């Protein structure tokens, strides 16, 4: 089974540069792994200003409950994707990304 290689920062840079659209097979594997691993809660975005502002929130896995809101807001969806990617990278590898 595929596992994320924490040394593959090239893949990280690829995602940061282009979170949406065509990805290399390696990056797609990383994203699929992140999105399908078992978690107790997962990230969602709550749109507070249509098409302009989003708040990071968490939903429980396997239940019906309102999202738990955070103080983290975004003006661009790309920024939200990058923020969540970094959170997940650390959660999976145990390491902070050396890329802002």
């Amino acid at each position, binding site marked *: 089974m595929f596992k994320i290689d924490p040394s593959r920062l090239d893949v990280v840079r690829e995602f940061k540069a282009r979170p949406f659209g065509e990805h290399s097979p390696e990056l*797609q594997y990383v994203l699929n792994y992140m999105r399908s691993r078992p978690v107790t809660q997962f990230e969602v975005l709550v749109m*507070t200003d249509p*098409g302009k502002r989003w708040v990071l929130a968490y939903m429980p896995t396997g239940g019906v409950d309102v999202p738990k809101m955070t103080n983290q807001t975004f003006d661009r969806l790309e920024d939200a994707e990058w923020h969540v990617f970094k959170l997940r990278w650390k959660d999976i590898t145990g390491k902070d990304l050396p890329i802002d």
Partner: protein
Amino acid sequence: MTRIMGYADRISVQPGETVAVMASCIGAPRYRAEIVRLLNPNAGMGASDYKEVRIDTPANASYPGREQKMHAGSFGVVPAKRALEGLRSFTLQAYVWPTTPKKGQQALMGLWSEAGTGFGLFVGTGGAAEVRIGGFRLSSGVPMLERRWYLVAASFDAESGRVRLWQEPIYDKTFHAERPVAVDGKAKASLPDAGAPLIFAGWRKGEAEAPTAWGRLLVSGHFNGRIDRPRLARKALDRAAIQALASGRLPSGLEEEILGFWDFARGISSERISDLSPNRLDGEVANMPTRAMTGHNWTGAEMDWTKDPGQYGAIHFHDDDIYDCRWQTDFSFTVPADSRSGFYAAKLVADEATFYVPFFVRPKKGTARSKIAFLASTATYTVYANNRARFLSMRTELYQGRISMMDAVDILQLEFPEMGVSTYDRHSDGSGVGFGSRLRPVTNWKPHGRLWNYCCDLFIIDWLEHVGLGYDVITDDDLHAEGQDLLRPYKVVITGSHPEYWSLEMLDALDGYQRQGGRHMYMGGNGFYWRIAYHPSKPGLIEVRRSEDGVRAWDARVGEYYHQFTGEYGGLWRRQGRAPQVATGVGFISQGFDACSYYRRTEASLDPRVAFMFEGVADEILGNFGVLQGGAAGLEIDCVDPALGTPPHALVVARSENHSNTYILVAEEVNVPHGAMDAVQNPAIHADLTFFETPNGGAVFSTGSIAYAGSLPVNGFDNNIARLTTNVLRRFVDERPFAMPT
């Protein structure tokens, strides 16, 4: 925190007619309502500035806020009848198929009330069958398994106080270690409450102050699962008599004992439940449980319930079924005679909370105010109503390619799960949701939030407003009811960004229109895909059976592919000889939701037949911009396929390319799964901008992409997609006939 939500009694209203609005307002003493006409979506960057037109009407006012409750959960009910009065001894029995035996106490059938009076059959806390007589309980002690048929029966003799309970698994070809169980006990009789109805799949909680799904009856202890052949006798029967009662035919020799001998295989398309006993204790179901479900005796030899209803005698009840909230009306709006046709809504505002209650104003029946009609996809909107699954799992990201998104109105659905879900969801017991209803608050019909369906169609309305040729709005509900007569006055019919769900009546009407010179602009993707059945009499209720294959949120169980409402075979139109390519030239090929792409013009775009389309459009690349993820081609896309019905003379004038990894071949295109099913590797995945002529001077233009609509408003409609589309509209509205190529 203040909450406001509501719904309308009608989806399509003519000038002079009245639409009633029901609202529930929690946390504010009053709320404000305004009737507005919607002109575009509130879509942010790249889209037109959001605007709505306030309609001058006395309905615009402040109203007292009050909470109106939603009572989810389906059940069956037999109204109180003299035959049910004074029952002390009894036998209750049914075949049952529990789907959540461990969820907690659930009532199977009986005359038991929450006050602790009467008697009934139950699924106890641990999943074992149980009989209750007043406060007395006797359990089989053996938990039942999920999705397995059992005969459950209980008899009670009031004189001796003897109670007996049976729980017997039914042979189903699987291997289980279960054995039949029978247990005994002693109890005192408990008379049911006077006037109490007999209830299936729930117990009587009491009476509500306002209407509920059935009168004012409050029901609790909803059972998840199927019930087949329920019976009631006025005496304690022995096992042999119980077996006789469990047969499909009324047994001889038990006439004095039998009180109710219900046959759920009768009236499957209706809400009626029939008692074959001499007492005729007929009843009805409430909140739309699912019928035409395989029963305890289904052999697998028959797949069509209409051919052998006796094998389809099960009703599947769910604790989250809901059809009509039956709220009381807050206010009404009578559409002024001179009103423009369009997308309308009652905008409800309480403190910081806002909720739109949409409806459509159409022209008076038999008339048209324009040569152009926009057909609002109300069938598809209804099928999608309250789609919750998309933000309940991170796995949504696997096919969306992005983090799931919601807004404050979506969250209402999580705060108030009793408002029910959509046919894109599963019930709480994991079974697929087969009904969509609009007679409840709907969180995804609004001009903001996720840009999908209703919201995306407002891009097309925005463009029609910009072009200024006028337009009428008509709806799927109108089309289903009125057929081709609805379309006949129009030179051009525009279908929306995602007209996915079609009844036979709708499809036949469109086919007739296209064959008689009508012009059709299909402005979307993944249209004309699933077959649906409208309920023949209940408004705003649509059924979909997700049979065989297709891109689907759940799959219908084998043997349950035929609609309950009509007996029609369900599933993809493609599987019924009417693939989308027949009507529009194109059909569903792929979906992806991370990024949208563009079209590249083809050699065919130079054909003189389509010269009108490209006047002022010199670009080779079309739609490499858009509000919907940056391109005109994407989200759900369609392509031509002559084998599925694309006319031989159809011209693909532009074809999309460069779709991302999340775009995968749809299931019905894959017989043998392989490693090259994404758009990066598979050249079959593309959207085809397609044109062809039809008989009697008609023509069809198809975009084959949901995202297309989101490119129209970019740069103030000064772009090649808007220009090309406007060219098509102007030519299509022109009386000059198109000639079929020879």
